[in-house]
């Protein structure tokens, strides 16, 4: 049985444990129909030309994992940004771990989707927001919607800001030989609210993991949302991350994606600007080696006038790694005075590494500023010689140049401890000791 059939037959069993009267279940039923019709995307589709899910579909994934684990905080501490105090929402093999988490209802809600689905007090928010930004057409998104049950639920009311940043951590223990996870997150920042979120998916063994995640983010008028995705997973872990962001007037949403590991990572990052004077910021640093594969698919839809978007993705590809950047910008006819900027710079440090970079601009308004640039090159030999002539060995000099290359993206990280952590991951990845932080 291939994965699609297995999922379809599992849906019936899944459904039996759900509240069939809940309006969300209607969404699930619709979604599974869409997935049944479309199935997994194939390389024949333009959007999946460079990323194949074929091999994943041959793996016999467990859909409902055993719910037993004996994880201690000390075992997983290193996957947290533990240098600062944060709220934590932790899932172990897809199941919420109250033991490892620190949630709150003190003025803001930092808790679970399962609670939000089942408790009446959250119903108004679910009714207004759930599945309103996510696609009802894209097959993997609808697959996630069909099986939605658990994930992070974050609700920040008007004028509020949580006391500390929030970390969402999805752990896979390896209890199953192969595990499929489908977390579903909902994040709502109402008018003038602000929130900082760090998200990480981490497999603790070399067992196969396939995560198909959907996150919806709503930013109300004047709201500010910072979302950091840290992707540094094991070599048998694959992730399809579908993030949908809907923004109201004068809101600012910044999404940073740091991709340093994993077997196959696909980031579908979709922004919809539903108001004026909105700023959308998409930044990424990708550093890959071995046979790792990362595919960034971004979409910024400018649907109203006077908005901005800034995309800046840097990639460094070594060994046999492959990268994809596909940046789509849509400017509706009404969206005059749009200022959309997109940049994708890549360095290939091996003859066997590949990058496919494709800007895609669809502009229907006539008074806009849209620019895009893409570069693919090698490390600057002259710069390398300059550093080496000052006594810095080749390996360290190469690392410094890579830091310099990724610097624009790192500079906009607003949590200093996170920036330090990212620096450390990069240094480890490059196998160097760098005596300072950027």
């Amino acid at each position: 049985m291939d994965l699609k059939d297995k999922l379809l037959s599992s849906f019936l069993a899944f459904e039996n444990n759900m509240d069939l009267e809940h309006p969300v279940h209607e969404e699930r039923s619709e979604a599974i129909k869409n997935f049944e019709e479309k199935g997994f995307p194939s390389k024949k589709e333009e959007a999946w030309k460079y990323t194949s899910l074929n091999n994943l579909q041959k793996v016999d994934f467990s859909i409902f994992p055993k719910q037993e684990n004996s994880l201690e905080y000390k075992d997983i501490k290193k996957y947290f940004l533990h240098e600062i105090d944060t709220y934590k929402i932790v899932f172990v093999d897809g199941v919420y771990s109250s033991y490892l988490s620190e949630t709150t209802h003190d003025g803001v809600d930092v808790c679970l989707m399962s609670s939000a689905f089942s408790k009446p007090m959250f119903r108004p928010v679910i009714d207004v927001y759930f599945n309103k930004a996510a696609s009802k057409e894209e097959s993997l998104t609808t697959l996630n919607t069909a099986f939605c049950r658990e994930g992070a639920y974050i609700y920040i009311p008007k004028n509020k800001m949580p006391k500390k940043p929030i970390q969402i951590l999805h752990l896979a223990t390896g209890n199953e030989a192969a595990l499929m996870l489908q977390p579903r997150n909902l994040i709502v920042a109402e008018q003038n609210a602000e929130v900082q979120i760090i998200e990480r998916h981490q497999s603790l063994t070399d067992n196969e993991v396939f995560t198909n995640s959907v996150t919806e983010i709503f930013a109300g008028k004047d709201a500010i949302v910072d979302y950091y995705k840290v992707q540094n997973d094991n070599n048998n872990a694959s992730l399809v991350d579908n993030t949908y962001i809907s923004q109201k007037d004068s809101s600012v949403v910044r999404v940073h994606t740091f991709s340093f590991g994993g077997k196959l990572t696909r980031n579908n990052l979709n922004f919809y600007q539903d108001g004026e004077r909105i700023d959308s910021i998409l930044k990424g640093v990708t550093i890959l080696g071995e046979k790792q594969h990362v595919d960034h698919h971004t979409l910024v839809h400018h649907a109203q006038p006077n908005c901005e978007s800034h995309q800046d993705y840097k990639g460094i590809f070594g060994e046999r790694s492959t990268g994809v950047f596909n940046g789509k910008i849509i400017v509706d006819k009404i969206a005059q005075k749009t200022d959309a900027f997109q940049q994708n710079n890549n360095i290939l440090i091996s003859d066997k590494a590949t990058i496919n970079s494709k800007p895609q601009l669809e502009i229907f308004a006539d008074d806009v500023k849209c620019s895009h640039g893409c570069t693919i090159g090698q490390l600057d030999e002259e710069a390398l010689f300059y550093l080496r002539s000052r006594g810095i060995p080749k390996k360290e000099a190469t690392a410094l140049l890579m830091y310099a290359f990724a610097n624009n993206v790192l500079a906009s990280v607003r949590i200093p401890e996170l920036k330090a952590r990212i620096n450390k991951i990069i240094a480890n990845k490059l196998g160097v000791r760098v005596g300072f932080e950027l």
Partner: protein
Amino acid sequence: MLKIKNLHASIDDKKILKGINLEVNAGEVHAIMGPNGSGKSTLASVIAGKEEFEIKKGSISMEGEDLEELAPEERAHKGIFLSFQYPVEIPGVSVTNFIKTAINESRKARGMEDMPANEMLKLIREKSQMLDIDRKFLSRSLNEGFSGGEKKRNEIFQMAVMEPKLAILDETDSGLDIDALRIVADGVNKLRSKDKAIIVITHYQRLLEYIVPDYVHVLHDGKIVKSGTKELALELEEKGYDWLKQEAAV
């Protein structure tokens, strides 16, 4: 200290240096002058170890050790310093962090511990004052958005901090106004000592009024066609290079 014997060097099979002989002893300052394209910058790059250049014939040695097989960083660890004609911009790495990294990597290569932070701070402060460098300048990204003069001053600042045995200044005077030139020259002169040597590469005589050389060599078409004392520089300033080219052709 530095001995260059019959040095031939090429890039992409294009011959640039065609038999250079030069001996620089500790305590000496040598000026190398010559028209554009004569091979001055190539000579500097070859001494510093730039890998694009291939040594076809001859040898370079420093304190008796052959340099040909040494990487640029190993030459730096031996005390060779090249002040670049066009310093490279490195965004995101501050001048201070760059200098710290350079000093500590050189110490590591010599089997020493990192320089203690307070000592480093003192060294950087002292040398930046000597070159009239503002503190704000030190936290800026290396060479990024620097004016031509700032870049050159920053090169000499690095030299002052690293205290090389052999400093090669490649067209350090280009892009400097007269005030900056004086400050830079003062910095270089403070490095002069009986156990250190300096090679000044320049197109014009102007810099040599401030950094007075012991010897002047004229490079033309990959060869040293004339050597003399500081008076030769003045003669060149007056007559230009054409008479030497003609002399060389004969």
